[in-house]
């Protein structure tokens, strides 16, 4: 039978209250954070330009988290996204600076490479039946090695054309920074894919109950590989944009996105639905984390506190998600 959690012993009213907390706790937390920061720093925080700035900063983490969401929806973990993004950053600058490829071609090559890394991850997990934590950690470490091999560990700085930097620094439509537009396109696309397409239904089914999905005639392996491919492509986009923003290709520039993305995805699973991963949740999850960082920055909190904040929020997020699940089951 199902596992036994302490939630079963609670009175119905406590349970209802906890249920509200588990589903809406993250949104309440987000609003509370905005209120507190606005109150403490009425001139710097609650302004349109700060909001755009925060969103711009958040966009890269959001894109990688959106991709990671696709991997976790199909029931797997992808630990390679941070390392992959770093590699893409190095490669894309290299392709442009050393090989003089046109920028669109270089970006398309990166996206294709991201998809390929996803296929490799997916095949290792589905065909060789290696646990996804191990498989993607292994693949990610290989990518770190490739990245060093390509750049010898030296950041590619000189000769990066201005037009490449514009990819991340430019603005479009009403002066909205490009990364926000990319992020919106990625999230819109992924949301439509998961919630409104036939493949999306299969993705949800595979994540929810792989055995039932398989016997219903769904090609489970193919769907899982697709999850990794989307994750890999989002990592490629993030890595490329980060290189454009930094104006350089650096071997470990994007590594730390992994933890941010995981915290966001798990926070997201505890948002609105009972511990189920979904795109909209990831969007809200990333916002919480990035706004938290921004607030800590504005108040000049020391660097260590950002790590404490991120680690703590990951644990809170997973806790909330499993609370939601056990409430839904009992």
């Amino acid at each position, binding site marked *: *039978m*199902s596992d*036994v959690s302490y939630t*079963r*012993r609670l*009175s*119905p009213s406590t349970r209802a209250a906890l249920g509200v907390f588990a589903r809406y706790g993250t949104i309440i937390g987000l609003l509370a954070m905005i209120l507190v920061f606005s109150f403490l720093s009425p001139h710097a925080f609650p302004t349109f330009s700060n909001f755009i700035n925060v969103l711009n900063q958040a966009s890269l983490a959001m894109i990688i988290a959106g991709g990671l969401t696709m991997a976790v929806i199909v029931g797997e973990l992808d630990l390679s996204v941070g390392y992959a993004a770093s590699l893409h950053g190095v490669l894309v600058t290299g392709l442009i600076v050393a090989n003089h490829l046109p920028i669109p071609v270089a970006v398309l090559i990166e996206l294709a490479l991201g998809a390929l890394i996803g296929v490799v991850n997916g095949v290792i997990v589905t065909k060789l039946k290696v646990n996804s934590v191990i498989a993607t950690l292994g693949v990610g470490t290989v990518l770190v090695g490739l990245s060093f091999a390509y750049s010898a560990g030296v950041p590619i700085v000189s000769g990066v054309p201005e037009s490449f930097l514009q990819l991340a620094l430019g603005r479009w439509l009403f002066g909205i920074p490009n990364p926000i537009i990319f992020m919106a396109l990625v999230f819109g696309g992924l949301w*439509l894919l998961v919630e*409104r*397409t*036939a*493949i*999306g*239904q*299969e993705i*949800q*089914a595979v994540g*929810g*109950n792989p*055995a*039932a*999905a*398989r*016997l*219903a*005639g*769904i*090609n489970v392996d193919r769907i899982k590989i697709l999850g990794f491919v989307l994750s890999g492509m989002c990592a490629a986009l993030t890595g490329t944009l980060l290189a454009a923003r930094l104006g350089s290709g650096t071997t470990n520039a994007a590594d730390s996105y992994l933890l941010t993305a995981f915290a966001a995805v798990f926070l997201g699973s505890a948002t609105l639905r*009972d511990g*189920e991963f979904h795109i909209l949740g990831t969007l809200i999850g990333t916002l919480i984390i990035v706004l938290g960082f921004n607030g800590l920055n504005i108040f000049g909190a020391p660097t260590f506190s950002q790590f404490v904040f991120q680690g703590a929020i990951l644990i809170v997020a997973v806790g909330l998600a499993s609370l939601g699940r056990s409430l*839904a089951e*009992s």
Partner: protein
Amino acid sequence: MNPVPTLMAAPPAVPFVAASAVSKSYGGAQALRGASLSVLPGEVHGLVGANGAGKSTLIRILAGLTQPDTGEIAIEGRPVAIASPHAASGLGMSFIHQELAFVPDMTVLENIMLGLPKKTTRLGLVDWAAIQRDVAPIIERVGITAPLDAAAKSLSTAENWLISIARALVWKARLIVMDEPTASLSASECRKLFSIIRGLSASGVAVLYVSHRLDEILDLCGRVTVLRDGRSVAVLDGPGLTRRGLVQAIVGGAVEHLSKSRDTARGEVVLSVRGLRRLPRVTEASFDLHRGEVLGLGGLVGAGRSELARLLYGADRPDAGSMTIEGGPFAPRTPAGAVRAGLGLVPEERRTEGLLLGKSVAFNLSLGNLTPLLASPVLPFISLRKRARLAQATIRDLSIKASSTEQPVGRLSGGNQQKVVIGRWLRSKPEVLILDEPTRGVDIGARGEIHRLIRELAGHGMAVLVISSEPDELPDLCDRVLVMAEGRIVRELAGTDLTRSAIIEASYALTEERVPA
């Protein structure tokens, strides 16, 4: 005339456990409405009722898995609160659930002692030798013959049942609750289980026996509580405890009888199977399945029926043999391939293999058949409105009892869940539909409806293969029945030969023939 039965003359004993006026609702659904149940020390007490009548909820409450909204539970006359499964076992109750819980890689002895306090040596290490000595009489009593150091995963379902019973006895349980214990046991294993239950009762351990199989209930139980719509509608005992009485109490109205009217004209061969083999369970299977017929596959548990179905469905690949579908070669490598070729499957374990319990009825109905939901032929998007409309139509056609198309399917009763799994194939109309134990754990009323539905599907030209462990089920439902034993199809029964006793006889046929050899 035998006047007053002695049982009634005796002073009323204090029940070991008494639940009175228990109510429980899940969301809007009222699972129990003031149900009562009392089990006397050492009696075998039956608990019956249609699916959704509240049996599982009542048991979950006794097991401490969920809390009642109102009502009282008393153990030996003292009111108690059962806050957790741990508390329930502390009160002397032991539960053997339908899905057995054991650790496959641990040994028989380790599984018996799982979670129980263990004797230790002076150094604080577990003293397995002493434990083995203590447990030996219990092992003998329940008849575990497997070596104690064998891995539990190497044991049959029946033997794992014995482990669970042994656990309960080691823990000195005063009441053992068994939920559908014979659902996956063969006839001889059932007989063994019954004698163990009688032995338990004689030694003062009460058994609460939950089952849909009324013959077993009548055979074993002294008293039977009948639940209907969350209420305890009858407690039958003595001369009042008859099959007719039970059925009337369960159904609460007249019982409808399925008439066996058959349109015997069957169509051309759709699926042809020749010499299919996958050792050790399937040695040789050849048969033809015709359009518009319902073909039954009977036999004992372990005869190789489910394994044969897995071969047809591409879940496993055969060592030898060939299949054709619609005259063309058919060698599915995956279930997805089998579905593309025109097969549909209603799997045996509907909760783990058939459904996404947390997802809506509409989601589950559309699983694996999404093309009709597309909003337009060019774009890949699905229309939620179309999905809801199709789901609504299926809910109506199959009279699925659901509050809406968006209700999570896990909240439905077993029979309605099964209709959802069948409903999935209603629109995609596969050439061949395989149903594995379609009415297992389903109440009498829903069973009749599912049977009618299967006949209808065949009537519309589908070729249907039904696998069932219940000999009662196949003669009612099928045009023709193949009986499997030890990996082979040993007999084909049709027409007037197709009876319950013929199926049972054929199931044992091979075993008997082998005796002199």
